[in-house]
């Protein structure tokens, strides 16, 4: 029984972490139709920046560090989008190549700056003592992480569905020309979407830090996870990314615990199964 409860909670926290990773990717892909392969690198860069800030500044709060890293990565993403990606609007192959190229550059730059050793991100001291769940002690931080991902999900939902800016973004997605004709600054809004997606990845890297820490190769580990979550949940569906994250969280955690040698295959099975029967993903729109 203890095994199932602890692993279940672990699955939840991994799911939360995956949503912090995948939501930004899903946002950019769904709204801008851009497969941003730099996403894993943004996540890793965020983790390194946060870890460094926490080391350098005494008494810095993890949440402030996450916010700061998120803003830096968002700014970097914005510059990249403005200078490079806007020139490649009609060239999806070019977008793939430059985002991949950018991820190589960031990964190598991180290796130069921070070296090959993993840099741990400390758990906030207030959250270090475990919480009792059904009489079992469980790391509090992991539960808080689930709360964070739910907060991000609700925030993104409200932004896109309940605000004027969200309505303008959706209009830009549905009919770019028409939106522009009625005075919506589509390309500025899309840059903002890219910044937001990159920023969530950067902040997610810091928030995931106490569990993953920052290390070379984190980007290549995380990008495929973002991809399978998004493919499983359905491209461009926030709900799909959310549900997909937790499905993958559960499958990966239990797969690792029960069949450690095959965890990596088990991770991809749900994606392959879903594609076989529902190519658009669980919550994807047909033809999207």
């Amino acid at each position, binding site marked *: 029984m203890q095994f199932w409860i602890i692993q279940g909670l672990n699955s939840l926290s991994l799911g939360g972490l995956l949503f912090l990773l995948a939501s930004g990717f899903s946002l950019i892909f769904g709204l801008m139709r851009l497969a941003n392969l730099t996403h894993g690198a943004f996540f890793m860069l965020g983790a390194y920046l946060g870890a460094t800030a926490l080391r350098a500044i005494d008494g810095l709060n993890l949440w402030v560090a996450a916010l700061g890293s998120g803003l830096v990565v968002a700014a970097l993403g914005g510059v990249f989008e403005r200078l490079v990606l806007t020139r490649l609007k009609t060239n999806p192959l*070019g977008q793939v*190549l430059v985002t991949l*190229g950018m991820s*190589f550059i960031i990964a190598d730059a991180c290796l130069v700056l921070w070296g090959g050793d993993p840099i741990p991100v400390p758990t906030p001291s207030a959250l270090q003592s475990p919480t009792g769940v059904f009489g079992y002690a469980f790391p509090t931080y992991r539960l808080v992480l689930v709360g964070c991902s739910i907060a991000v999900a609700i925030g993104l939902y409200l932004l896109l569905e309940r605000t004027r800016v969200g309505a303008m973004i959706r209009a830009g997605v549905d009919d770019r020309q028409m939106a522009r004709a009625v005075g919506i600054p589509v390309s500025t809004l899309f840059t903002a979407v890219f910044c937001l997606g990159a920023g969530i990845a950067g902040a997610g890297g810091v928030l995931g830090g106490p569990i993953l820490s920052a290390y070379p190769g984190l980007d290549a580990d995380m990008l495929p996870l973002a991809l399978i979550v998004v493919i499983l949940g359905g491209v461009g569906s926030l709900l799909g990314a959310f549900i997909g994250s937790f499905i993958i969280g559960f499958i990966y955690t239990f797969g690792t615990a029960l069949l450690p040698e095959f965890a990596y295959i088990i991770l991809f099975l749900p994606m392959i199964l879903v594609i076989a029967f529902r190519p658009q993903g669980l919550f994807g729109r047909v033809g999207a």
Partner: protein
Amino acid sequence: MTRIVLGLFAAFLLALPFVAGDFYVNLASQILIAIIFALSLNLLVGFGGMTSLGHASFLGVAAYIAALVTTRWGFGHGAAALISIVGTTLTAALFGLIALRATGLGFLMITLALSQVLWGLAYRMSFITNGDNGISGITRPMPFGLSIEGAFAFYWFALGVAVIAFALMTVFVSSAFGSSLKGVRDQPRRMAALGFNPWLIRWITFIYAGFWSGVAGLLYVYYNKYIHPTSLSITSSAEGLLGVIAGGSGTRGGPIVGATLVMLLKNYASAYVERWNMLLGLVFLFIVLVMPTGIVPGVRSLAARIRGDAR
């Protein structure tokens, strides 16, 4: 004019071992392997409009199968090569079934994810694959009783395979089937309305490209006598894709020029700069922004313009 240039080029390729040292001959062998790989990827990307980011899977599968059945299970080279090629082609057929459920960026993401599965297997299933240590102790075969142990002999062998690969892939794309493939790339709905089966055309192409990538993988493992999970990684697939795009996807010569450029850059750059990955990324950015259609079409249109002006 073109014929003379091609003739001189062929003579140069054949005579290379007589004018160059071991280092350059070995480099040339590696370039030939990269060219076969890029040509096979170009069938998908250039002629089929299917951007795969997992093409190194088939190179790696072929190399791993050949390495495993010879070093571990004691098969002879002939049988091993056959098992490896058949196994790789079947893997391509299976991956095609999964990946071709989607098109465009969905296809790209699925091929990337599938290649990551194989990469993960190669790393984690160390009881079979030796994990991060890779598999060493692979020997080179003796095709038709001839030794290809020496650098020169291996080069000529690789050159022969590359010429055959180029010829057969050229036949493939210039055949009626190749025309239907280009039709499916440009106008899938019209092709379907005309009674073609776009899915089947794509699948057959995917399998055929997987087969040639497997041939490149066999040469790769014979050349290196060693195989490591890195050869299945995203970087490995991306290098191939860069070669195709840099040279000019959808042209016959593009992948040859592009793959040569990437391999030269990689070998020279790694001798002088440690940061190969950063350089690779910068080259990606540069090429996409400056020459979106690739070197071969770029040079061709430049030449046409010069000729036009001269007239």
